[in-house]
């Protein structure tokens, strides 16, 4: 597995940059992963999305439906794209340290 390094952070990621071991996630890691998405600063809005994703992931082991994410955070899909340019699955989930989605999704 490739290792991604950013400042003092050193984490294993898969070939698409998703964390290999989501348990190792912390807020510094989020910042590190955000840098790969062209995000330089994580605002309160970013955190709102990230925290929701993490809470859901902790409870259910997978990422939530996109529609649900929008509803629970109050953001439109477009706003989420503005926050995470590669979108909820490839962008936001990655920064939140979730594994890559699987199945016909």
């Amino acid at each position, binding site marked *: 597995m490739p290792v991604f390094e950013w400042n003092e952070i050193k984490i294993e990621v898969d*070939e698409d940059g998703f964390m290999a071991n989501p348990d190792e996630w912390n807020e510094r890691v989020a910042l590190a992963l955000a840098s790969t998405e062209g995000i330089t600063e994580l605002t309160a809005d970013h955190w709102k999305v990230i925290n929701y994703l993490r809470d859901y992931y902790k409870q*259910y082991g997978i990422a939530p*439906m996109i529609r649900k994410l929008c509803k629970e955070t109050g953001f439109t899909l477009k706003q989420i794209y503005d926050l995470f340019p590669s979108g909820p699955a490839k962008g936001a989930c990655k920064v939140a340290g979730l594994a890559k989605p*699987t*199945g*016909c999704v």
Partner: protein
Amino acid sequence: MAEKRKVRISDISNPNIYPLAEVGPNNTIELPPPYDKLENLPGFKKLSESARQAVDDSLDGVVAVGVPKPKTPEEEQELVEKFISGLIKLFSKENNWTFLQPLLLTMEHCAKCQTCAEECPIFEASGYEEIYRPTYRAEVLRRLYFKYVKPGSPLLKKFQVGDIELNWTLISRLIELSYRCTICRRCAQACPIGIDNGLITHELRKLFSQELGIAAKELHEKGTVQQLLVGSSTGMTPEVVKDNVSFIDEDLSERLGIKVESKWDVPNADYLLIHNAGEFLSWPENPAAFAILLDAAGIKWTYSSELVGYDGVNYGVWYDDFQLARVAQKHFEIAKKLGVKGIIMGECGHESKSMGIIAERIFGNEIKTINAMTLVEQIVFSGKIKFDPERNNFPVTLHDPCNIVRLMGIVEPQRRVLRYLAPKFREMEPHGVENYCCGGGSGFAVMTPYNFLDWRMHISGRKKFKQILDAFKDEPPGPEVPKYVCAPCSNCKGQIRDILDYYGAKEKSGIYYGGLVELVVNAMVDLKEPFIDFSMM
């Protein structure tokens, strides 16, 4: 202009040719503006150095499976021997009765006339790269079959089909090559003799999975294995899927002003409805539309919350007979336990084929399967529901999922529905059983490792994108008129979504996509609000 030397069959075992073929964005299939300039499109993602060290990219610089490189010559030798033992099993009736007869017919009777080559959208889109020619892969297997399995004089066999050197280079390239064909079987359709090169892809994948334990991670580890153990290839447990479905019900009831009510584990229901579980996560309107339609038609239906019972996918159909049978057996067992008359299969091509005809042959016809196309037709023309086709007053074209159309012969029901309910319906060319694959067939739509997405978009999906654009060419080209690609298959939808994103076709041309039931429900007079909301798509 100096012509590039074409790749020979025997080159596949030559490690000094690296990569065996070079493939990238090209304009062999020309697209109309604004998609005609290659420089405006993303190229192929470069593999990272660490990826190149870990996995083999020597086929075409693209990685779908990511075959780990053996560390020692002994390990290599062991794999070669395992491959030979798998090859022998592939041709034994005990181990491969499931496909032995068609496999032997294809191995023994190809006239090498290349009639099939022109029919392959991947071969064409690649700029006619030899390795993608439908006969290339088949020819490699044929030579191996003659050399290692078929009895007879080696000299005669060389005279008949030629020789090939078997080494790890060949095997690792052949693994990747078995994931460069969508098994759409247009090539088989064109063969005058009845040879099936798509079958060869299927059988090779089986050999690798069933003997060497090598398969695309998305299909095996995250696919059938996850489905059997967790309940769904999406990773949804029963608890999650129920939570999601109740969210969909609430969300849409609120938006539409009509009650959307899904049912779980209802005893004595008439039908068990099984969707491709990806629908719940990515296209929630689709299962919601089913719920609305079935209720309006007065059909007593239920979902099952048992493991596997709420995910109709069966990726085994593309790479492993045993995984296929295990998943199918769960579906049938659950239906039997619920005591339903049969299973309604959602809009999913490989679900329909694997359950409706393939598993039917393994486990028998006692559990009836109803495919979505005929069911929707039945409901639409039953007179129980009032429709206003004018509500679908936007251009609509239809994509024919290979599994449902070319491989099951379900061609007309969906068309009769569209001719009635979509006044601006137009066909793609060619269509029906001669359709082109979306480019995401045989599991590709769920595979995005390394740079495989680029390959899917530029190579396997390009023909379909051209067909979609051509179908709407008499409409205003910009985004002001929304245009709907009806793709009644989750897998095809995934691929078409990726194509439209990749080429920016929603923004540039206003092209949207969705299933069949959404259009049907959108035309229902009972709905106050439009069901299809382009601003949300």
